[in-house]
């Protein structure tokens, strides 16, 4: 593997309980030779004990004791594999209805989503839900895998029907790039290797598709945003006047001599240097972790944002967001929560629920305004101080936030700024 050039692709998988999601992941890992002998032996032993014929690929993704006992996935699990072209991180999310929050979690960091459809059943309610979440979380690339093609005699007509059904569905959502692949995870058709059972399919197998997805243009390179994490002030000889603003570039490109503005204060200055470790760099872009020094001594602390002066985010206290409620305890009307947005932490109040999305029909519901676990609603919030925001569809970092319940300290909601 070329450590100098190869990129990282994060993807998530979504499917209903019996769509064969675990088998697909097991197949990807197994056929790409990412599974070690002792893991294979352990799975062979378990498969035999459970009376399975041959090796049960789904067992490679089993995790916690309860999951193995009940044969279900409870929580997001992360899997890793590498090919000579890329490193992959899979956010393996459960397909159960009650675990919408897990899919939102897995999707929040993903560049791509695999949506699994059972060839026998076609597009079902869960497919809609998963696709909607993928579009809500602005995953740039969707790969629809029509699975279990072996059970419909590898029929081209059936595949085309499903593609058609899905196109109808996705036309109602904001998705940029959709690809369709007929597969059989169980038999290995079109997962890693080309299927000989579907010569009518002209596209690439799944793995090749994942290896060649064009992801470097997904990042926002226009709006330069640098949320400050901490200020470095070394207590060392030779560094008494040094002040480094440390953080990770959220978007855009910064260079020494750029005119910058610090928000929310509005002070302006110029970048004198950017470095990572002891190495000075000429250009910093997302998602680099760097430290910057400025020409003027200004009061800057965690939660502030350094931006280029000619391109600034909105500073708002009243914000409209799409929210996914993640907690058992429903939202209390006008209750206050802690809010985390980039490195900024404040209090916020949910002022009004505008509507709820019925994720089965994708209709807006204006009557039911209770925020229960797994609900997705559009709401208005007000924060104690202005947040420096961009719309989520333009910027995943400065457009996202979470709410925390101060009584339990739990993360109760994920928000995307409209």
């Amino acid at each position, binding site marked *: *593997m070329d*450590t100098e050039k190869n*990129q*990282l692709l994060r993807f998530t998988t979504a499917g209903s309980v019996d769509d064969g999601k675990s088998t697909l992941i097991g197949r990807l890992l197994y056929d790409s030779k990412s599974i*070690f*002998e*002792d893991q294979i032996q352990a799975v062979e032993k378990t498969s035999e004990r459970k009376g399975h014929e041959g090796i049960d690929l789904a067992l490679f993704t089993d*995790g*916690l*004791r309860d999951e193995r006992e009940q044969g279900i996935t409870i*929580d*997001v*699990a*992360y*899997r*890793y594999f*590498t090919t000579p072209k890329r*490193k992959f991180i899979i956010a393996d999310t459960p397909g159960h209805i009650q675990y919408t*929050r897990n899919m*939102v*979690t897995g999707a*929040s*960091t993903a560049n791509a989503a695999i949506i699994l459809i059972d060839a026998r059943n076609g597009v079902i309610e869960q497919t809609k839900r998963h696709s909607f979440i993928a579009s809500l979380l602005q995953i740039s690339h969707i790969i629809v895998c029509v699975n279990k093609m072996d059970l419909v005699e590898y029929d081209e007509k059936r595949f085309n029907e499903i593609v058609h059904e899905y196109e109808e569905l996705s036309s109602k959502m904001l998705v940029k790039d959709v690809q369709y692949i007929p597969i059989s995870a169980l038999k290995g058709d079109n997962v890693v290797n080309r299927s000989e059972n579907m010569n009518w399919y002209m596209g690439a197998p799944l793995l090749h598709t994942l290896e060649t997805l064009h*992801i*470097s*243009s997904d990042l926002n*390179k226009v709006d330069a945003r640098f949320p400050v*994490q*901490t200020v*470095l*002030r*070394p*207590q*060392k000889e030779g560094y008494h006047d*040094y002040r*480094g603003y440390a953080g*990770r570039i959220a978007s855009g490109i910064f260079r020494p001599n750029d005119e910058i503005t610090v928000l929310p204060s509005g002070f302006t200055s110029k970048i004198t240097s950017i470095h990572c*470790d*002891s190495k000075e760099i000429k*250009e910093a*872009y997302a*998602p*680099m*972790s760097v*430290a910057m020094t400025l020409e003027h001594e200004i009061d800057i602390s*965690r939660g502030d944002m350094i931006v280029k002066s000619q391109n600034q985010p909105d500073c708002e206290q009243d914000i409209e967001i799409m929210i996914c409620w993640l907690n058992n305890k429903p939202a209390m009307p006008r209750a206050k929560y*802690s809010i*985390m*947005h980039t*490195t900024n932490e404040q209090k916020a109040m949910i002022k009004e629920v505008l509507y709820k999305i019925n994720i089965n029909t994708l209709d807006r519901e204006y009557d039911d305004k209770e925020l229960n676990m797994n609900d997705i609603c559009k709401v208005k919030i007000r924060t104690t101080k202005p947040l420096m925001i961009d719309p989520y569809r333009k910027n995943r*970092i400065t457009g*996202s*936030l*979470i709410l*925390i319940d*101060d009584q339990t*300290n*739990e*993360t109760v909601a*994920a928000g995307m700024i409209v």
Partner: protein
Amino acid sequence: MSKYYLNYLDELESEAIYVLREVYAKFQNPVILFSGGKDSIVVTQLAKKAFHPANIPFKLLHVDTGHNFPETINFRDNLVKSLDVSLLVGLVQESIDTGRVAEEKGKNATRNALQITTLLDTIESNQIDCAIGGARRDEEKARAKERFFSHRDDFGQWDPKNQRPELWNLFNSKHFQGEHFRVFPISNWTEMDVWNYILREKIEIPSLYLAHEREVIWRNNSWIPVSEHLIMDESEKVVKKKIRFRTLGDITITGGIESDADTLEKVIAEVSVMRQTERGNRADDKRSETAMEDRKKQGYF
């Protein structure tokens, strides 16, 4: 292709540095759990980068079972000196002497599980609110479900079925008095990533990772080093072998593999074709199918 993208190692490095800076900003008294193994060494080096030109703002915490490789302790002391950080040591022997834990008996006895008590006691008595670890999600199935910021209750326990959802890069670090967090900056790294990074950054690691001659016995399908702590039975024969270690734990339970890889490049070449997981030679993981999950729930690393 656009030139504005990071390769995967740079992206992993940047993610880890981001996580370490979040820890510094959000906790009062964080420490790095330092075992002397390659993963905790990499985390320590990442911390050095994250805060340059300032010193690492964390103490190192070593839970010392007393069953160490002498090389590990030497390495630890040199590193602490060169980085100018302070070192906290939690002694398992002390937990045994004060009756907090009882030593296992017999030939397969280990002090592995005893570390949990020593670790939690040290965390409590030093009022540590965050322990940074080098655990990776690819190591073990229970670890695959771990968060970057992982909450521990006031008994130090992990509740895997009730974890806080972790979205984007927004880490919820809120906790009540007595609770603490475990934070894993290299969650998304694999064994190969760690090796490639060590090579690229020319990070110094203990010589134990490279092939060397050693007196060993054959037990549980691996070469266990002979030491004063090893209890042998009559059937076990001491032989001299050229071995290296893939992970470093207690000297009594860490098995080596036969190898000629005496340089980093050779180790990486060997690891990349290796057909056994790295923890395959750790007796502590072999005890049952859920050995790691069970220990983690109680407060293990």
